[in-house]
């Protein structure tokens, strides 16, 4: 297993390099110009010098190499320096945003907590709702509950977050006035009253994202449970006189969780994609909103870095899912 993990880790390096190259070249091919929004009164030679100051004068492979160097060498050095008070980085050039002229990673570090709160919470809530639904739907196949579960997950697949979010705002913020429609990120929780407000403002974005997760995970859970319920070992367990709850919760559930765990791991990147839209609706100033703003401002280093971070996450979670599959199911051997 360790062997396999190391091999996969090594293999993921060329994958990530290729992805970085694709993103870089896409941004490179693009005709957008970071100088496009500068006043027309700036003389051409000054404009040229400004471009060079942004590092745009070099050929693309030099810039690609420098970006990789900054991403993989300089930025980790700054992290270590920040964490332990050392001085590895020694004032080396960091990845600088075109828009704010501040290091890209500082901005990302400011925005990340909001996104992680909303996205992480919604994923936990979504999975927590999906698992019981999947289990009961499979155990009582074709019952009213199962039909209702199927319908709800169909809704979850079909209603896009930009409609469900807007619908929730119309109902609960506009008509009923129970919940705030804008997520206030400056809000600090100090006592019960503020905790209640935090809960109120999180409930809508979290539920919008959770609906998507629930739809997907509950379907997989149901299918996986159904596969296992028909197996011989279930009959054996019942024949031995085990109670129904032990049969279901201990034997069937454990075996059914194997594929579901990997689905849960693989679903995390897609929920970040959903977060881009949800943050736009509820005006959460998280990573997704940062990406949109950077795109609109032609802020190439920022777009490049955020997109690449997402790609790293996808590749790593794919790896985690594969390894988990092997760990949970001893029948699977990769060697």
């Amino acid at each position, binding site marked *: 297993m360790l062997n396999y993990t190391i091999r996969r880790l090594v293999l993921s390096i060329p994958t990530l390099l290729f992805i970085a190259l694709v993103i870089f070249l896409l941004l490179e091919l693009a005709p957008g110009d970071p100088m496009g929004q500068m006043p027309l009164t700036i003389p051409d030679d000054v404009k040229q010098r400004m471009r060079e100051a942004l590092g745009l004068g070099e050929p693309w492979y030099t810039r690609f190499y420098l970006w990789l160097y900054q991403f993989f060498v300089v930025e980790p050095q700054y992290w270590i320096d920040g964490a332990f008070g050392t001085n590895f980085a020694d004032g080396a050039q960091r990845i600088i945003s075109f828009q704010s002229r501040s290091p890209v990673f500082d901005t990302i570090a400011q925005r990340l907590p909001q996104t992680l709160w909303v996205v992480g919470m919604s994923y936990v809530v979504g999975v927590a709702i999906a698992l019981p639904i999947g289990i009961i739907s499979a155990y009582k196949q074709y019952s009213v509950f199962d039909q209702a579960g199927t319908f709800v997950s169909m809704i979850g697949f079909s209603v896009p977050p930009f409609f469900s979010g807007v619908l929730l705002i*119309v109902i609960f913020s506009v008509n009923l006035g129970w919940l705030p429609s804008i997520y206030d990120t400056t809000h600090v929780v100090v006592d019960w009253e503020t905790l209640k407000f935090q809960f109120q403002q999180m409930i809508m974005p979290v539920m919008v994202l959770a609906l998507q997760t629930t739809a997907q995970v509950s379907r997989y859970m149901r299918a996986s449970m159904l596969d296992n319920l028909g197996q011989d070992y279930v009959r054996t367990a019942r024949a031995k006189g085990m109670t129904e709850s032990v049969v279901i919760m201990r034997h069937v559930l454990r075996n059914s969780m194997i594929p579901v765990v990997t689905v849960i791991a693989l679903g995390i990147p897609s929920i970040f994609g959903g977060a881009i839209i949800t943050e736009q609706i509820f005006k959460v100033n998280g990573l997704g909103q940062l990406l949109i703003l950077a795109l609109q401002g032609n802020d190439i280093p920022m777009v490049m870095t955020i997109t690449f971070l997402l790609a790293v996450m996808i590749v790593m979670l794919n790896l985690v899912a594969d390894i988990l599959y092997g760990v949970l199911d001893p029948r699977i051997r990769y060697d």
Partner: protein
Amino acid sequence: MTDLGIQAKADDLKPEQAPVKDRNQWWDVWDQFRSHKGAMAGLIFLTFITLFCAFGPMVWDVDPGKLDIRNKDVRPIYVAIWDVDAKTSWARPMGTDHLGRDIMANIMQGGRISLAVGWTAMVLAILIGTLVGVLSGYFKRLDWGLMRFTDLVLSLPILPLLLVMMLLFRDPLRAAFGPETGIFMLIVAGIGITSWMQTARIVRGDVMALKEREFVLAARSIGTPPRRMITRHILPNVLSPIMVSATLGLATAIITESALSFLGLGFPSDFPTWGKILFDSVDRMTAFPERVLWPGLAISLTVLAVNYIGDGLRDALDPRIRGL
């Protein structure tokens, strides 16, 4: 009582079981499909919304872009039921927006574009996916490379990349092909080349299993060349998974296009699509919730219908379930 019931059932079945000439397997598929209530409802709704958008503008002869400031902010006609003083008009059954443009005409026009984008992007994705899947499943030499490539594309963060593509290539394509065609091509190509991977994987798996079957061996033993092998023997047998993933692809394409429009990176605002209308209405949803409701319902119900059709197709195309 039970006997009578069975008798009645048998009578019902009689006309169907009578021998019919030229009964090919698609009739069986259709019979199975018809028994799936959700799928039938989905098919009926999809047909309705397609006809509504395609032929609606011929009946409802209002220019969707025409500004009519005097009749701006007209509420839909049903508001008059509980609010007599509301500004309603039979000439504007779904109301008008803040510039006096007719919402029903806009929904029709938007639906035309949304559905056209959905169908074209889906066809493109299915073509690429089938090509990659068949090539990699049939020719061992290509398999490794093509599948690594598929894995690579699968690890790309799709939505951010699509946003980047939209933003960066919008203006040159608009200049080259005109505003509508240019953006249409960009969106269709963007969605098409980022959503073929699942189809490719499914098709590859099925082709690899088919390749080991006796009829393929028989066909090869009489000297069938690979090209005819694929078109005559392989492709017809992988048609059902392709059709099922086509329905899923259509649903995803419609949602992706609306999401792009919703983020303000789709069509320009003078070309309404459902996502664009929704996006434009969000600012005024406090006073006019119906403007969000119409396009949102159109998107959701269409996608729901397509998903149910996919469900029904999967059952209907599975010969193990069919006829039960």
